[in-house]
């Protein structure tokens, strides 16, 4: 297990390097002079040129990359070109809100999806299955910005039960934090729930046909035990894979929810920085996002072995 972890973590290094090269190339391929974007249309040309020089943008690309890589390896992600704040600080500032939103989204999704997935699989072909599947399809199809706005209209404007924005950190004001998290978590959770429901239903249907389920039933176990203890546990493997990908996507991909509910999250940091051509922030944030995605994937692989004892984390050849 330990050897496996070490190997997996060592493998992250070349991937991170590759990601940094890709991120660096992409941001330089996007047209738009960072100096001009930062200074805006109101700046005289000589100021723009001076800023280019000051930001080191006149150096060859390979030199710019090497210099960035050098300081990153020493733990310095650099400073924002726009407002000179340290990139590491910006990432740390933005991370809690996104992590919290991702966790709540996943909670909402699980609470909806697990019972719904099991129920629709067990009652396959019934009206309930049909209603559940349509609901899941609907949840997967509606854009979450639309759902977000609808939730605000209903719960903030008409019923006045929940705030439409106003994120504060949990440790500053836990109640306000949780209240502000409900609508965004539901808006994104609905979609994740739909995806997980569909995976769980399909996977469970497959498992329910398996021999050992028939055996379990044949030896007289109650249907509840057969399903919950034998079938669901086995059906969870593909669901976990899907959920892992979903969570990984959420960490960088909540930008629309963050925009609608004005949550200071990680997704908005990346998007805003791309629009501002704030190269060090984009690079630092993308690198960090890659790190998070890989970590989540690793965690999912570890959870596999906990859920299904048949899966052993091999330290030798690829599993």
């Amino acid at each position, binding site marked *: 297990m330990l050897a496996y972890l070490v190997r997996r973590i060592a493998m992250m290094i070349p991937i991170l390097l590759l990601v940094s090269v890709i991120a660096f190339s992409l941001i330089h391929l996007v047209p738009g002079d960072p100096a001009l974007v930062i200074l805006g249309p109101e700046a005289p040309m000589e100021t723009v040129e001076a800023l280019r020089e000051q930001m080191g943008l006149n150096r060859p690309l390979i030199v710019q990359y090497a210099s960035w890589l050098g300081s990153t390896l020493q733990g310095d992600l650099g400073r924002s070109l726009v407002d000179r704040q340290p990139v590491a600080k910006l990432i740390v500032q933005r991370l809690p809100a996104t992590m919290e939103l991702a966790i709540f989204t996943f909670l909402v999704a699980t609470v909806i999806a697990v019972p719904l997935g099991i129920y629709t699989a067990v009652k396959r072909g019934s009206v309930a299955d049909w209603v559940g599947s349509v609901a899941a399809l609907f949840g997967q199809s509606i854009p979450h910005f639309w759902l977000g706005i609808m939730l605000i209209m209903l719960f903030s404007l008409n019923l006045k039960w929940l705030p439409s924005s106003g994120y504060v950190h949990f440790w500053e004001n836990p109640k306000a934090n949780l209240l502000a998290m409900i609508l965004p978590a539901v808006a994104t959770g609905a979609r994740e729930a739909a995806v997980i429901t569909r995976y769980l239903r399909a996977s469970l249907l497959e498992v329910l046909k398996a021999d050992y389920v028939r055996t379990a039933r044949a030896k007289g176990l109650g249907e509840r035990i057969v399903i919950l203890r034998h079938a669901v546990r086995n059906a969870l493997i593909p669901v976990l894979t899907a959920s892992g990908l979903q969570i990984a996507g959420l960490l960088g*991909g909540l930008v629309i929810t963050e925009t609608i509910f004005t949550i200071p999250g990680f997704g908005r940091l990346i998007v805003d920085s791309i629009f501002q051509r704030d190269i060090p922030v984009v690079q630092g944030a993308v690198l960090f996002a890659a790190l998070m995605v890989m970590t989540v994937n690793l965690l999912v692989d570890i959870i596999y072995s906990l859920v299904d004892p048949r899966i052993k984390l091999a330290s030798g050849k690829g599993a």
Partner: protein
Amino acid sequence: MQKRRLSRILVALSLSVAFAVTGCSGGSKTEEKPADPAAPAQQQQQQADQPQKDVVINIALNADPPKLDPHQSTALVDRQVFQSIFDKLVDFDKDLKIQPQLAEKWDISPDGLVYTFTLRQGVKFHDGTDFDAEAVKYNFDRMLNKDFPSPRKSEINAVDTVEVVDAHTVKITLKQPFAGFLSILADRAGMIVSPTAAKAAGVDFLNNPVGTGPFKFKERVKGDSITLVRNESYWQAGLPKAAGIVYKTVTDENVKLVNLQSGQLDIIDTVPSRQVPTLKTDSRVQLAIHSSLQYQGLWLNTTKGALADKKVRQAVEAAIDREALVKVVFGETAVPAYSPFAPGTPADDGTPLPKRDVEKAKKLLAEAGKADGVSISLKVSPSPVNQQIAQVIQQMLADANIKVTIEQEEFGQLLDKLSKKDYDMAQVGWSGRPDPDGNIYAFVVTGMGNNYSGYSNPKIDELMNEARKPNDMADRKPMYAEAMKILHEDVPYIYLWFPLNVKGLGPTVKGFMEVPDGMIRTQNLTK
């Protein structure tokens, strides 16, 4: 298995890049939603009563202010926050008349070269140091310092010397007369930063701003919010009224509006024009619609392509119906434009709008040898409103056999292409300045940074430079009028509409002042 993991990572990453590319634009800097000349009397100029200890005013801004140092600031949105943190030497009232602020009074020599300011006494910076003549001199030195990246340099390059006469008197001598000088000092170049704090922080002052204004900087979360608290020792007795101001960056207009309606926000800096009619009867919102200094229109590339021919440019202008455009897209949140000088501002000469004339447009094209029509592209930055404007123009020009292809370019790319003159026609406007010079000079004079059309006309250069000299607007106005005649003939830019300021306030917000520069003065705000 390994391969699959790698591809998972790549998929997740490319997704995060993809949403970034297709995602919503962070609000283009010069594009503001417009409104109605007969502004309803929303504002209630409140008399000084007890400051309210617990009231925090939440103000939404359409973009994140990048640099909180007036001398390094490049984005317009920065200026909203500066209104709270910094005082200026002078300020505008709601009629754009210059009023005392940190300077109590001033005297201008008859030749327009020497400005002597008498400074207010007993004013302290937020760090406890004194505001005096030395501080003013330091501020000018800072802006003019060659090694300090200040975009203000070009605004005050007429300044020759700044002398401290005594502790509370400063004498500024100009190299040549510059009629717009005082109005420059009512903006970022006239904002006075604490010399002690600025020296200590260097360029990083932009994250630790210290001024003399009604509110002190507390903290910021990049891209999200800027929090200010009351300056307890503000020089204006009884002000500010609120205990704090929070500026929130909200890029989506509809999100802004619902948060105003739900009470999470108290003031929003723009209101979607489509919503204005219904909001008039919405008890959760007060609308403040008043004139602005902005203009919007089309840049025409005079250096290459079909539009290098003056007749083709004239044909484009003749085919556009400004009134219809404004009516369709903006309703009552904009008025048609035929110059860069907003209605009611000093240089506005009231030249009537030209009527749309499709036959004239066709005739002009024929004279240019393009009787069969021309094809040109129109670049706009992506937003639903810009898309709508482009489509209306496309249809109008189609009637005159001018085929327009609409190209959406993200704002940064659009600016890049404009400055490289890599376009035919582009929709980019200007945020406006109180002095007419700030709305025309850099846009039409040969070789200037904002002259995106590549236009050059010695007569215009001469008129623009002459119009900078006299102090009396009556002497300057005829020169601007003459320049406009030439520009209407040469058409490097087609002025289309003046957006109005449309701000939304919560139902109980008081003390809002409607100033055409669009800046929200915060010292009187309460709720």
